[in-house]
């Protein structure tokens, strides 16, 4: 880890008793940029790993793994010993959990006066809803995003991922960096109370002002835009292939007309102004779709972008990994994992910063993988001490339970079901080969 000294966060130690996505993903870029992150898992409740949930490596690469049972006095003592030599503690339990362990902010501040302590909760650490819980999609509902997402003639819709977990994670990263900056200047640590709900609402200012200024609640517009038209995803050749096209102004419309070969219908005076196009948007979308349906989505993206018209393929997860732009940018990186996985692609863990080379990512730790390193090198325990701790099951590296998750490699029968339910569009038994990894 010689390169670490050059990295922006070299020398920062973070304890992460975090779980799932919202908190671990907040720490991912910090680990990539040189912070030493100790991920603490309870052997009785370890995180789902690659064979149960493939995202474990995305979230937890470059971290150390410590298996520690906080339900024991000795486990709590070790946690406190680690706090005394750490800079940041980051957790995402409901507020009662760390309090009941005697590990809330006041307790840890007494051990390490300048500790930075991030509590990431669903609705905040105070207030009537403080112990309410949420999974990613829930907060997307509460913050108003679902209300404005969906087909104009349909119910509110959610996105296909735990979107609000990501918002919380992005906010948590900023919170820790801001608190580190404050500590650097003043020597003071602090407690960060991050409400995933509030972090989500914080991005909704324009919608909230819209209601206050006009008395109108924004509704659902599908892919349409209040001013721009055409502004839609149009079907292309192939199975579930789509091109999005956004026409910002008259220049875009003229360029789009030329790219389409200036068909007769597009010369109708009605279509020559944004208001006119907007007024007959349904008809416009139908005619656009008739044109796009005969073409490959990738071909249209290239043709329209060359003409200066905003256009993009609605890419699926496989397309994204194969995308030439993301590959050229170094956004697609790789992890070298033990068999049976081997080399697998991931997204860049941190942001491109000139002069900063984090080097290749290290795989996420197995449960308790670094027990010995952490206890011996950081806390000075002897091998005999550690053996005794393992004997007492205070530290461990054998999962005593598994999280439900379902394997990422579906069986033949499951593939048929997933295809029938339209959950998946394709099954590729050998993605490594398709991705050029072998």
């Amino acid at each position, binding site marked *: 880890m010689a390169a670490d000294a050059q990295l922006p966060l070299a020398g920062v130690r973070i304890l992460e008793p975090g779980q799932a996505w919202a908190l671990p993903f907040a720490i991912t870029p910090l680990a990539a940029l040189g912070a030493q992150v100790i991920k603490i898992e309870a052997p009785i409740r370890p995180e789902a790993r690659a064979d149960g949930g493939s995202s474990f490596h995305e979230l937890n690469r470059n971290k150390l793994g410590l298996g520690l049972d906080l339900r024991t006095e000795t486990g709590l003592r070790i946690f406190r010993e680690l706090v005394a030599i750490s800079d940041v503690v980051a957790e995402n339990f409901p507020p009662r959990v760390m309090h009941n362990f005697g590990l809330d902010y006041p307790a840890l501040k007494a051990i390490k006066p300048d500790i930075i302590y991030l509590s990431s909760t669903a609705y*905040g650490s105070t207030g009537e809803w403080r112990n309410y819980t949420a999974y990613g999609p829930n907060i997307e509902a509460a913050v108003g995003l679902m209300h404005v997402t969906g087909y104009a003639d349909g119910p509110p819709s959610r996105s296909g991922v735990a979107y609000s977990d990501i918002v919380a994670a992005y906010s948590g990263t900023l919170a820790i960096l801001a608190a580190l900056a404050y500590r650097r200047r003043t020597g003071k640590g602090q407690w960060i109370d991050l409400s995933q709900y509030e972090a989500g*609402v914080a991005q909704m200012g324009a919608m909230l002002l819209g209601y206050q200024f006009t008395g109108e*609640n924004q509704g659902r517009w599908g*892919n349409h835009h209040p001013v721009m038209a055409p502004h839609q995803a149009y079907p292309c050749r192939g199975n579930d292939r*789509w091109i999005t096209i956004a026409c910002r102004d008259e220049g*875009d419309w003229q360029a789009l007309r030329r790219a389409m070969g200036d068909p007769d219908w597009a010369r109708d005076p009605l279509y020559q102004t944004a208001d006119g196009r907007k007024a007959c948007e349904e008809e416009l979308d139908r005619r656009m779709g008739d044109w796009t349906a005969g073409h490959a989505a990738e071909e249209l993206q290239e043709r329209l972008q060359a003409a200066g018209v905003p256009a993009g393929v609605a890419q699926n997860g496989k*397309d994204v990994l194969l995308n030439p732009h993301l590959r050229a940018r170094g956004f697609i990186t790789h992890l070298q994992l033990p068999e049976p996985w081997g080399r697998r692609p991931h*997204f860049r863990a941190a942001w491109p910063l000139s002069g900063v080379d984090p080097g290749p990512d290290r795989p996420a730790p197995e449960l308790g993988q670094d027990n010995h390193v952490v206890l011996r090198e950081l806390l000075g325990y002897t091998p005999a001490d550690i053996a005794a701790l393992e004997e007492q099951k205070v530290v461990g590296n054998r999962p005593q339970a598994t999280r439900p998750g379902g394997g990422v490699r579906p069986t033949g029968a499951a593939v048929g079901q997933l295809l029938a339910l339209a959950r998946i569009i394709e099954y590729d038994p050998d993605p490594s080969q398709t991705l050029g990894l072998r």
Partner: protein
Amino acid sequence: MSDTSNPSEESSQALGGLRVLEIGQQIAGPYCAKLLADLGADVLKLERPGVGDGARRAGPFPGKRPDPEASGLFLFLNTNKRSLTLDLSVPAGRDVFLRLVREADALVENNRPGKLEAWGLAPAALWEANPDLVITHISSFGQDGPYRDYQATELIFYALSGMQYITGRHDREPLMHGLGQAQYLAGVNAASATLAALFRAWPTGAGAVVDISIAEMLTRVIFSIANQYAYGGTVQRREPNNGAGLPNSSPVACSDGYVLPSHAGISTHWDTFPEFMGLPELKRPEFEPPTERILRAHEVAAIVEPAFAARSKRDWFHQAQEWRFPFAVVQDAQEILACPQLAERQFFVEMEHPSAERYKLPGPLFRLSESRQPGWRPAPRLGQHAEAVLCGELGLSQEQLHHLRRAGVV
């Protein structure tokens, strides 16, 4: 609300003492700089003389009457900043800018890639004025790569990121989120990346260029979808809308709106779910295997939908939480503004702007216990701080300022 923050208040904020220049417009750049300003950084926003940030013309406007000093989008995205108009395309404007750069820690901008170079403000020129400046670029697709000069709107980000493909019904077109989310995600990341670069610049004196791609920050959101293909070979689609949304975590209709049950209950807490719902008829052997509940989603929906429809969404929300089922309420803007939890935590910030009515804005992304929250100054009027900055800080005379104004530089 204080009009000018005093130095002691500034230094007690998380980013007190940090000086940031912003050449931003619309959402991504201004949101990045707003987050830094809300944390106590002194952000000077540079706007084109006579025109200003395009967000000033975006609305929503009070009473729907366009007014460049009362655009909701602008008022939201520019709290706690100061504004100076400056024409960066002429040498006099560039000279003033480079003097400001000398005193700055970071520059945040979201112009087209290459725009700064065209103004003679390439990194080399900026570092000549200030070697440890952090230069944060935010752009649609980044500063290099085959898509560098691609045109984009939010819709295009949703398509290329992979977010759109997995949102909506599988038998209809893929959907984007309702608001400019990609650009906000880029703004938050740009703020973090700027601070990360500063952690290196402070001890070493080495400036850096930060290269944030809006499309990439949205693409990171779908990591699990990409991982599913990379590890399992499956390419996920949009979720079918199986009746009550169960078990696909879609909104379910209640008597007065929608509740989001999430996957708790139907997939992971099936043993207690029928009792919680008051629906013993769900306890059928054919529903026992979780995969069967997915395959028989329509049957499950036919049983649970009437129960949901019989009660209000808030009833379901609170009762579910008592049972530790993480249900949530689908809320609109009006309901969020009236939310008791947000009120109890005093989340909203009330503001008054000379050109706009009183309004509530979202408060901070997170609460800091020791460093102070900002005084919450409203967004600046176009060029409001020209004299304070140019005469008060750069030491220009009134006559020089007058000259710059007459030449249209300021």
